[in-house]
């Protein structure tokens, strides 16, 4: 697999606080990588390190095949776009003028692509309105537009939907999916809004206390968190026998509850259990969410 970004045992401290502590992660090319962790877990620090805003204390990372200590790393950085925390924009300039400024910073020869970028992010009709009068969602989209100005291959978005209303969240989600599908841009999104990430990500990295505790693809996660039916019965041994006969996957959780990982024909199951003198108290379909998976990873009590 080809990777855009790989970090190896990366560490970053602020005085005595270890913000990133031996972090190793791999972002595959073409992925939407959901970077999941609670506030203060080290998500933003990692993005700052990759963007060159800060230097790691130890460890290293590779961005498009170049190590962070390589002088040529700036060439790799020219292939990335980022929105770190708040969008970087000139509040007293219009969306178009903001993009013109970014074009100048990047040294692009003409302003030709500006209209297209504004269209991509849905800001083509804002006219001369200054960025300081934009809504939070519009500012976020303008931030992404600025990040797109250099036609990047890799986009780093730090909490892009933080503080947005439901409409704004949907717009940003659609935009990210569009950029990934139509322009094949690899995206790293840090967030602690797990439900939102679940609708986007193709890969996940779970971070806690400055280190990655689990990296998993969306397909693997789906397998892990697949739907199950919680069956509460009087005799789990009888239920196990019936399920074995029906060739269903299951897991006995306690003396009354069993988790069945299959589509259950309720009438058939109840009928067979009745023949085994087993009472069925309840059948409840449940799906383990990304949230419950995350909490099971980092320890529920501290993070519930």
């Amino acid at each position, binding site marked *: 697999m080809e990777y855009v970004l790989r970090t190896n045992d990366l560490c970053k401290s602020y005085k005595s606080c270890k913000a990133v502590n031996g972090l190793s992660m791999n972002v595959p090319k073409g992925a939407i990588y959901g970077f999941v962790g609670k506030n203060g877990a080290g998500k933003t620090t990692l993005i700052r390190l990759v963007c060159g*805003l800060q230097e790691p204390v130890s460890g290293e990372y590779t961005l498009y095949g170049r190590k962070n200590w390589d002088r040529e790393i*700036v060439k790799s950085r*020219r292939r990335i776009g980022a929105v770190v925390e708040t969008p970087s924009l*000139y509040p007293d300039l219009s969306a178009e003028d903001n993009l013109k400024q*970014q074009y100048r*910073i990047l040294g692009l020869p003409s302003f030709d692509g500006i209209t297209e970028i504004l269209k991509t992010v849905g800001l083509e009709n804002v006219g001369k309105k200054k960025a300081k009068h934009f809504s939070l969602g519009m500012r976020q989209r303008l931030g992404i537009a*600025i990040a797109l100005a250099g036609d990047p291959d890799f986009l780093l978005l730090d909490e892009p939907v933080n503080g947005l209303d439901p409409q704004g969240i949907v717009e940003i989600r659609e935009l990210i999916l569009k950029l990934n599908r139509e322009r094949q841009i690899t995206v790293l999104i840090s967030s602690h809004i797990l439900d939102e990430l679940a609708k986007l990500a193709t890969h996940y990295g779970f971070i806690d206390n400055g280190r990655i505790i689990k990296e998993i693809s969306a397909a693997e996660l789906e397998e892990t968190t697949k739907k199950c039916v919680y069956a509460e019965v009087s005799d789990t041994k009888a239920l196990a026998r019936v399920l074995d006969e029906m060739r269903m996957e299951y897991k006995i959780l306690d003396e009354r509850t069993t988790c069945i990982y299959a589509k259950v024909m309720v009438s058939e199951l109840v009928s067979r259990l009745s023949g085994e003198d087993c009472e069925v108290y309840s059948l409840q379909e449940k799906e383990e969410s990304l949230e419950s998976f995350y909490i099971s990873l980092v320890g529920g009590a501290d993070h519930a």
Partner: protein
Amino acid sequence: MRKLLSANFARLWKFGFFWICMGFMLGYSLVYMLNGCRQALALPEISFTLDQFYFHSALSVGAFCACLTSMFLSAEYGDGIVRNKIVTGALRRDIYLSNLVLVFTATLLLLGVWWIGALAAVPVLGVWKMRFSELLIYLLIAVLFTAAFSAFFTLVSMLCENNSAAGVVSLILFCGLLLLAALIDNSLSQPETISGYSVTIDGIQTVKPQSLPNPHYIHGQWRVILQYVLDFLPTGQGLQMWLLEIADTGQVIRMMLSSVLITVVTTICGILFFQKKDMK
């Protein structure tokens, strides 16, 4: 670097505070020079010259530089523009230098506006009494100490991300340096001797005034050191320029070298610190 300069200047032309400073500087020069004209017309027995008024801006340009630098660069920090430049792969050294060039040019433009506005007094005060070469040297010294001010305040603003803190620190530094220069100049301006008392009885002077040594006069090595310090400080140079106290070639060379030295050392230190700075 060229790309960053292009972006910086495009930004400067749209930066409202810069145009406010330009307007203020023009108004300030016109008011100050017209006041000079009024004095010249009111007191024809005193010979006023353009030179006496023309270099007044040398005193205040540092304050304008401090304000403009902190406002412009702090806005760049606050709006995430510096961060954005780093993310796009710009070298920190280039970001620092392009900002310094911008600040220096903007301050020179402020100075230029003052000098142009000050020409309004020519019809009353006439042209400069100093030789043309002398005028050029004065202007060159002003340009160089403007570079020193720019380097100094760029360092403060590039290392201090907080908008208001950078502005306050820059202005306090400027005021401190101006005060120091004024104190040194005052000490050096003390006469070597002072007149003693005289006693007059019925209009007949019985005790003649005697020349007494001034206890505040600074002698010897200390005098030389203080003069060097005054020539070294950009505020000292500005003060002496305003008072038309720049006398000999040695002093001119000293002032120019001092400004170049301050600019180079401050910029090197600034770049080194900025390279290591953790950006938020």
